[in-house]
C-alpha cells in the first residue's frame, strides 16, 4: 500500500508540474492565437472600411474634380460634363481592370453575398466607373483638333491594351504612363500655348502673336493655372483609389 501511495504521490509530483507547464504553454499559445485572430479581425475591419468608405469617397471626389475648371478671367467655377467618348473609354478601362484581375468579378459579385453587400459592391464599382470617365474628361482637351487627336490616341492605346496580356502591376504602370503623358500634353504643353485670358486679343497679337494665333487655331480654352493643380490632385487621387482597390471582397480565412 505504502509503496502504491508513494508511487502515486511520486507520479503526481512528477506530473503536476509538467501538466502546469503544459497548461501554461497552452495558455500562451491560446493568447497568441487570440491576438492573431484579433489582428486578423482588425485588419479585416480596416480593409472593409477602406473598401466601403474610403474608396467611394476617393472615387467620388475624383468624379467631382475631374470636370472642374477655373475660368481664366475671373477664376469662377466651370463644370464640364464628360463627353460621350469619356464614358466609352471608362467602360474599356473597366474591362481592362477585370481582365488584369485588378478587380475580380467573382470576388465582387456573387450569389453567396447578401443583396446588401452586392449592392454596396455595385455602388463602389459604379464610383470607379464615374471616376474613370471623369479622369478622361480631365485629361482630354475640351474641344477642337486637340480633343480629337488626344481622344484618338487614347482609343488606340486602350484598344491595343484590350488584346494584350496584362497583370495588375503592368496595367497600373501602363495607365500611369498614359495618364502622365496626357496630363503633360494638356496642362503643360497646350496650356503654355494658350494666350492668357486677362490680356486683350489686340495686345496679345502684338506681344505674342504666335500664342494668340495658336489659341485661335486650336480653339484652346483659357483656363486659370489653378485648373492644372486641381487636376493633378484628381489624377493622383484616382491612382490612390486604384492602389487601395482590393481585387476581391471575399473574406479570407
Amino acid at each position, binding site marked *: 500500500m505504502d509503496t502504491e501511495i508513494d508511487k502515486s504521490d511520486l507520479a503526481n509530483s512528477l506530473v503536476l508540474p509538467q501538466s502546469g507547464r503544459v497548461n501554461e504553454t497552452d495558455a500562451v499559445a491560446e493568447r497568441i492565437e487570440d491576438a492573431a485572430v484579433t489582428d486578423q479581425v482588425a485588419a479585416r*475591419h480596416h480593409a*472593409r*472600411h477602406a*473598401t*466601403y*468608405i474610403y474608396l*467611394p*469617397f476617393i472615387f*467620388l471626389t475624383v*468624379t*467631382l474634380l475631374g*470636370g472642374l475648371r477655373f*475660368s481664366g478671367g475671373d477664376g*469662377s*467655377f*466651370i*463644370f464640364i*460634363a464628360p463627353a460621350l467618348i469619356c464614358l466609352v473609354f471608362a467602360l474599356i478601362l473597366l474591362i481592362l481592370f477585370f481582365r488584369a484581375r485588378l478587380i475580380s468579378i467573382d470576388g465582387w459579385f456573387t450569389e453567396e453575398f*447578401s443583396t*446588401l*453587400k452586392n*449592392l*454596396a459592391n455595385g*455602388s*463602389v464599382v*459604379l*464610383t470607379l466607373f*464615374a471616376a474613370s470617365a471623369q479622369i478622361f474628361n480631365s485629361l482630354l482637351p475640351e474641344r477642337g483638333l486637340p480633343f480629337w487627336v488626344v481622344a484618338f490616341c487614347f482609343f488606340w492605346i486602350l484598344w491595343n491594351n484590350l488584346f494584350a496580356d496584362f497583370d495588375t502591376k503592368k496595367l497600373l504602370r501602363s495607365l500611369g504612363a498614359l495618364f502622365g503623358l496626357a496630363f503633360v500634353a494638356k496642362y503643360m504643353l497646350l496650356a503654355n500655348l494658350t494666350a492668357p485670358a486677362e490680356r486683350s486679343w489686340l495686345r496679345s497679337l502684338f506681344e505674342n502673336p504666335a500664342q494668340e494665333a495658336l489659341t485661335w487655331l486650336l480653339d484652346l480654352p483659357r483656363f486659370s493655372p489653378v485648373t492644372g493643380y486641381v487636376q493633378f490632385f484628381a489624377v493622383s487621387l484616382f491612382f490612390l483609389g486604384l492602389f487601395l482597390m482590393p481585387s476581391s471582397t471575399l473574406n479570407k480565412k
Partner: protein
Amino acid sequence: MKEKYIHFIAIVIVVTYGGIIVFLYAAEPRSIEEATSKARTTIETIATKGTVVIGTYQVDAAKFNDGLAAFRQDRFVAARDSFELADPEMRDPRTQYYVAYSYYRQGWGRISNDDQLFRRSLEILDRLKVMDPDFRSDDADLKAASPAELRKELEEGLKVTTSDLNPLRVFRERM
C-alpha cells in the same frame, strides 16, 4: 461595426455624394455663393413638388394678397410676380385666372391692343380649362367672371375687322 452597417454606409455615401455631384454639374454654379443659392432654390422646388405629390399643395395666401393688391392698382407686372410666387406650380385656378386677367388688362388699349399679351392670356386660359372647366370667379371687380367671357373678349381683340376703324371704339370700357 457590423458588416451590414458598413455596406449600408457605403450606399448612403454613394447616393448622397453622388447626388451633390449631379446637382453641381446640372446647376453649374460659378461660385460657392451661387451654389448655395441654387441649392436653396432646388430644395424649395423639390419641397413644392413634394407637396403636390402628397396632395397638400396650397397657395401662399400672403403673396396672393400682395398680387391682388398690385392687380387692383393696375401694377400688372408686379401682380404677376406675386401670383407666380404664390402659386409656383401654376395649379390654382383662381390665381391663374388673375394672371390671365392681368395680361388682358395690361394689353388692353383704347386704340389698339397688345396682341402678344392677349395671346399669353389665352394660353393661360387654355391651361385653366384643363385644371377646372367649370371655374367662375366671385370677384365683382372682374367684369368677365368666367374664362369663356374673357376668352371671347381676347379673341375679339385679336381679330382685325372693319369695326376696328370705328372712332367710337375709344369710348369702350375695359372688362
